[in-house]
């Protein structure tokens, strides 16, 4: 965008970079906080250091990939159901 100064603060490249930095700092803090707050966990594995972070990230990765793969089988054009509707 040429007049990026005029557009909203939220979409300027400089502020997007700033938001990424803040986001990464917050991410690091939530994991780092485990040095001070003990998550005792209920089933052993969930007491590991950074388990919530890793589990959240990997679960999302898995779901996105499964969705992507299923998409190859399940996705059809938007007119798919309209084609045969008006015959009978």
């Amino acid at each position, binding site marked *: 965008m040429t007049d990026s100064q005029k557009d909203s603060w939220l979409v300027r490249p400089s502020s997007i970079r700033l938001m990424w930095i803040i986001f990464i700092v917050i991410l690091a803090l939530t994991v780092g906080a485990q040095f001070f707050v003990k*998550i005792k966990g209920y089933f052993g594995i*969930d007491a590991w250091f950074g388990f919530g972070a890793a589990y959240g990230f990997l679960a999302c990765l898995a779901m996105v990939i499964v969705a992507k793969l299923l998409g190859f089988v399940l996705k059809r054009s938007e007119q798919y159901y309209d084609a*045969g509707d008006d015959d009978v």
Partner: protein
Amino acid sequence: MFEGLSPALILVASALLTGLLKNRLRDGLVLLAPLLTLWAIWQVPDGVVATVGFLDYQIEPVEGSALRRLFATIFAIMAFAGGLYAFRQAKWYELAAAQAYAAGAIGVCFAGDLITLFIYWEMMALFSTIIVWCGGTAGAKAAGVRYAIMHLLGGIILKVGIEGVVVHTGSIQIQPMLASNFDTWMILIGILINAAAPPVSAWLADAYPESSPTGSVFLSAFTTKTAVLALILLFPGEPVLIWVGLYMVMYGIIYALLENDARRILAYSIVNQVGFMVCAVGIGTQMAINGAAAHAFAHIIYKALLFMSAGVVIYRTGKSKCTDLGGLFRTMPVTTICGIIGALAISGFPLTSGFVTKTMTSQAAINESLAVVYFLLAAASAGVFLHAGIKFPWFVFFQKDSGMRPKDAPWNMAAAMVLLSAICIFIGVFPASFYELLPYPVEYQAYTTAKVLFYLQLLLFSGLAFFLLLPLMKRTETVSLDTDWLWRVLLFGWAKRTYNVASLVGAKIDSSVKSSLNRLQSRAQSYFDPSAENQRKDSKYFFSKAQPIGQTALWIAVLLTGYVLAYYL
């Protein structure tokens, strides 16, 4: 004097009056009737309030309990908030249908017996179909028909089950049962169809997004959550529900990730959220039932809020596809902020209603040592943030600049969204006052440092995953096949082919019958010719020719002789 009357009847009356009144009076009615209903709901004491003789049965139209009042309360709140959101934009018949629909849901809440439950159940099916049709498009008409077929079918299955239970046990009481025989399975299946359980989950995402921007707000609230209430009342602790619920949770996430239409994303996430509740009912402990009820309450609020913000966008821009939207935050700050609050609440962010209700179900799984259930629910919480928490607001309000600069919400729509946003945050910040409404005493601490930290990690890293994986989630202008393909395409194709073959055979039979009749007729005509001229000229028409009288007399004599001979032989 009103003890025997269900609070639902207030909304029935106001639904009837909505069509008769005009302008300010109608507006006042749409807003006041739900509040009056809310008051009436809290006048219902525990236990069976009234019985009425009907045929040979003792009907119990009103039975109170904390659980029933909780669900009725949220339905009345939704009737009010939905009315506030819709009263200046929606057609009067949509408002009337919405009130009757809410009345059906509230009627189910207080139904003391299976017959009353069934009547209100069908009332919901009827009026929700009308709301789908109020979408007004050809797509809405077709989707409404499919929706009606599905719900009438579900109603019949439920009815078969109820009849079976009544015949075999002689009781029409609503009481906990297990799916152990044909009758109870039928009841369970009938209820699960309304909960959008597999294999028919597709009806929800098929019908709701076809309704009007205001209609989907009402639709999102009632049908699936009355099904959850019915499951709590009839099938608490039914183990099969745990797995049905987990399937719904995952199904909702995957399909929402594939979806391009903003309201369809929200519709899939209803299935996902109801999955949490169904799973909790399956666990069945007091903690789990509290979790299911609390989550239903919180879910209705934030899901309606999300549908409201999507509805404003559609109302202002006429577009609902992620590929057409984006960058709307510039001119729609109220809608954006309310949409984000709804999105955070559905994701179960700390300080929102989702956090204090969803974690109860997880806690119930922990208490029963159901490790697999617990971890799947945790993964699903991450997935909810992915598909509804970020995906919905990101693609609608941010993403790219679509170039559109629509106005923000009209004042009444904005007021409804602000009201629901406030409830989302209030419940999240002061859970104790909300927990008092739950059916069982709550000994649960929602906010412990460790738990907040765990969920912050889980959710924020899901957020990281979303932005890193954005290239994989590029929106495409597609629909996703579902099990309803079996009847919408396969079965319909067979039916059409059968119809074509039958009409072909029918045409063949028709033409061959016609040609043989023709042949018979021309043959007959060769003996009897109708026209008098031919009679004289042509001798071929034997029966129409004039015959000499003597010849006729001779033939009569011969025949009579033959007859006499035959008589004596």
